[in-house]
């Protein structure tokens, strides 16, 4: 049977009802991967043998009458920058080609403990730097809805694999929109939880104060199920929050009456493509019809978000990526004769152009004499952006708007001009700067058949509200169907 088309909650039900074994489900997904990968190229590694072994272990536990975990038998795939003992952890970079991590990321450990079956790893922009996955040193990933278009990024593989039914759900990471933007472009649900909700231990850092792991799923209920497993305090991550984790599935069917939905004036401008705007506005109107109250809000410092973001994230990245030097692991240039050569040649040969650009930018904004004008100023603006949201959330419970200004764009369309590419994240970046939870869900298809994403932003640690509103949208508008894959 074609189990690959099912959601995670359907699979969990099927396994618990003994309608399907974990091995049957894993085989179904592995077959699907074989069938559509030539079209999609989402995976960087497929762990066929280990996936079947994990599935067999789940089945054995169920046969013994044991609790096999809340995600028993659910096939999951991981973004290439999550550390795993299985396979390689390359961050889609030449500098980590062949690198094997000695440990599993906390999020990976949690998935394993919950009985999930790990299928392999997914393509991304090198070190999560990009918005189209074109910066991968491994391969190009195609949008399942249109092979001429990018899947978004940086978690492009994670979004494409879910949209193409190559896994039940996937993990991505989101520094400035890297889960939500590809989720929007590929038509799946993507959540960046509140900063601190999910342990970052074992997530190869791009920008430590912005990075957050989150799930990309086929529907909102799956998103809640995944969060139930991923969230929670981790003593290995000093920035992980020690706050209670609710059962995120419980509030999904909550009433919309009295829910105040904020529409930021700054998000609905001329920059927004017509079709995106139409779908977003239609969905919001539908919410209003169900009793939600729409209010215009203002986030006056939004216009500085992109500039602020590219100072903060590059500064942190310049230090985070310094460790890739060829001394202990990873690529060391074979012709380097001196210590300085080893550093310069290994980094120049190991990092792609976008990564090098950001390291240089970050080094520059931290250099003495420029620190106050750039890094410090950016931190101050970051505070102002956070205050904008605090003020808005005094009036509304959730903020709604577009995830991405445009639907999926074509390969090469934005690679020539990095600034144009940076603007694809114009609506998603503030959420990371303000450490808020954000979710993207599909809200329609354009005339040319590309998905449009609606973004919801919430108060810190109020993922439940996002899930409740998203679930209502999903019910109101129905799904967007499946991409036209053979």
């Amino acid at each position, binding site marked *: 049977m074609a189990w690959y088309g099912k959601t995670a909650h359907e699979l969990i039900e099927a396994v618990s009802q003994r309608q399907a074994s974990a091995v049957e489900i894993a085989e179904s997904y592995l077959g699907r991967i074989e069938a559509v990968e030539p079209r999609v190229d989402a995976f960087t590694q497929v762990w066929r043998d280990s996936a079947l072994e994990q599935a067999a272990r789940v089945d054995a536990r169920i046969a013994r009458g044991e609790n096999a975990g809340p995600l028993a038998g659910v096939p999951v795939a991981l973004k290439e*920058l*999550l*550390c795993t003992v299985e396979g390689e*952890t390359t*961050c889609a970079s030449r500098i*980590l080609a062949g*690198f094997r*991590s*000695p*440990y599993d*990321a906390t999020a990976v450990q949690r998935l394993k403990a919950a009985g999930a079956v790990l299928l392999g790893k997914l393509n991304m922009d090198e070190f999560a730097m990009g918005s189209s996955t074109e910066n991968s040193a491994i391969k190009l990933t195609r949008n399942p809805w249109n092979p001429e278009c990018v899947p978004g990024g940086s978690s492009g593989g994670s979004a494409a694999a879910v949209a193409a039914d190559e896994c039940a759900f996937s993990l991505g990471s989101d520094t400035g929109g890297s889960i939500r933007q590809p989720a929007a472009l590929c038509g799946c649900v993507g959540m960046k939880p509140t900063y601190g909700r999910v342990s*970052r*231990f*074992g*997530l*190869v*850092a791009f*920008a*430590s*104060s912005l990075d957050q792991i989150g799930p990309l799923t086929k529907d909102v209920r799956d998103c809640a199920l995944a969060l139930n497993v991923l969230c929670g305090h981790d*003593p*290995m*991550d*000093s*920035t992980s929050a020690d706050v209670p984790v609710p059962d995120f599935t419980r509030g999904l069917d909550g009433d919309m009456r009295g829910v105040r939905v904020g529409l930021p004036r700054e998000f609905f401008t001329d920059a927004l493509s017509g079709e995106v705007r139409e779908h977003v506005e239609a969905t919001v109107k539908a919410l209003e019809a169900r009793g939600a109250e729409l209010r215009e809000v203002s986030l006056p410092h939004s216009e500085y978000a992109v500039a602020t973001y590219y100072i903060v994230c590059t*500064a*942190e990245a*310049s*230090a985070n990526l*310094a*460790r*890739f*030097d060829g*001394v*202990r*692991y990873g690529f060391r240039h074979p012709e380097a004769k001196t*210590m300085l050569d080893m*550093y310069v040649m290994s980094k120049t040969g190991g990092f792609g152009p976008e990564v090098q650009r950001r390291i240089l930018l970050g*080094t520059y904004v*931290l*250099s*003495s004499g420029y*620190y106050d004008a750039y*890094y410090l100023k950016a931190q101050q603006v970051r505070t102002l952006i956070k205050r904008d949201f605090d003020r808005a959330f005094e009036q509304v419970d959730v903020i709604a708007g577009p995830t991405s200004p445009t639907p999926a764009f074509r390969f090469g369309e934005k690679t020539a001009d990095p600034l144009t590419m940076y603007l694809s994240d114009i609506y998603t970046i503030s959420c990371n700067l303000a450490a808020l939870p954000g979710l993207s869900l599909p809200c329609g298809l354009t005339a040319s058949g590309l998905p449009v994403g609606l973004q919801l932003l919430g108060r810190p640690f109020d993922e439940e509200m996002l899930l409740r509103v998203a679930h209502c949208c999903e019910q109101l508008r129905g799904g967007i169907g499946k991409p036209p894959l053979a």
Partner: protein
Amino acid sequence: MAYEAVIGMEVHVEINTRSKVFCACSTAFDAPPNTNVCPVCLGMPGVLPVLNREMVNKTVAVGLALNCRISRWSKMDRKNYFYPDLAKNYQISQYDLPLCQEGFLDIEVDGATRRIGITRAHMEEDTARNTHSIGGGQSGVDFNRAGVPLLEIVTEPDLRSADEVYAYLTMLKQILEYLDASDCNIEEGSLRAEANVSVRPVGAQTLGVKTEIKNVASLHGVTKAVEYEIARHVRVLDEGGTITQETRGWDADRGLTFSQRQKESAHDYHYFPEPDLAPIVVDEAWEQRIREGLPELPAARRSRFSDQYGLSTYDAAILTATRAMADYFEATAACGADPKQAANWIMGDLQALLTLSAMDIRACPVQPDALAGMIALIDDGTISGKIGKDVLGEMFATGKTARAIVEAKGLTQISDADALRAVILEVIEKNPAQVEQYRSGKEKVLGFLVGQVMRATQGKANPRLLNDVLLAELRKP
């Protein structure tokens, strides 16, 4: 021209927490290379630091002992530079908000007290150790030391001589040992002292060009290097030359400093706040808990020893040199021993025995109550002080009590006048020549006769009684 030296010290001490500052690895010093390591201290992809709370506790304790203001709110920063001994190519350190600020330490040189300002004390992680002797044109890196907690203590340029540098380092070391914060082993590198030295004409307000002395492997070495450097500055300036700002090393064999590295354009470490760690908030209650747990510090203990036990300043200083020594002394006194006698025995015979067997007082086989017991036997006349020396040696070697040794060997003093007189008469009879000499005025032979009696009694004669009886017998016609 008359010059005055201006010296500031930067001291790095490894804090003796059991685990490293950001991971659970052991800080043990002598493990085989790269055995006390984990993904965190190796700087593997994806790892995160977790600050060791004990490091904060010990840093605050040191800060309080150095009269510092403890920052209510401080943070860690990243100091970025590339070197193969630095796993992440940044060191987690503290830049503009150190945990301890604006303190002082009073030092004593030639009986005068000088107050040395402490600019700051901040936490950071140690680096790995590079070795270039593994052969094959290769260098090796041992990451056992990477992530060992370091405290950097920086003074104001308040020191004026090599003697003051020596006094400062000695006092600092003593305080760190009292707080059980560090082993302070300069040879093993757990304490590293750097001196910034400059000179200026007496009375001048501006500072001269400084040189930095690094990598000196002993306390005396640092003092000697500073002394040499001051003299060199003065010589160069007197000859009309100029001092180059640079780092200098110390050649202990030749007794001179040498240029190691010219100061390049100032390093830019691209400091920024460490985003992987939360701010460090030491509230009043936390600080108070540490303050209450502080031991009595060396200076206070020294003056109390003088007051309470009537010890000389010199003796009090020796007995408080280490916390273990001072504890040992007080425990002995608490067991009833006369403090002055206890002090003499500890500083004299006991210290000699410890030195001979290269033993620390913490491992001393003679416990304070045992020493007090031995002193009591002298006090009550059971044994003489001379026998006491032998008994102590025996106690040290066997761990037995003084009483057990005295009884087993029959060392009890002869304090019975009649018994002693019998021996004395025998000696007088056997040495008529010496007796005659004494009686004719050569009183020096008395010592010989006393010695003969002691020999005959195997040293057990009560010395005072022996003296009295012998004199009485000699005076008899």
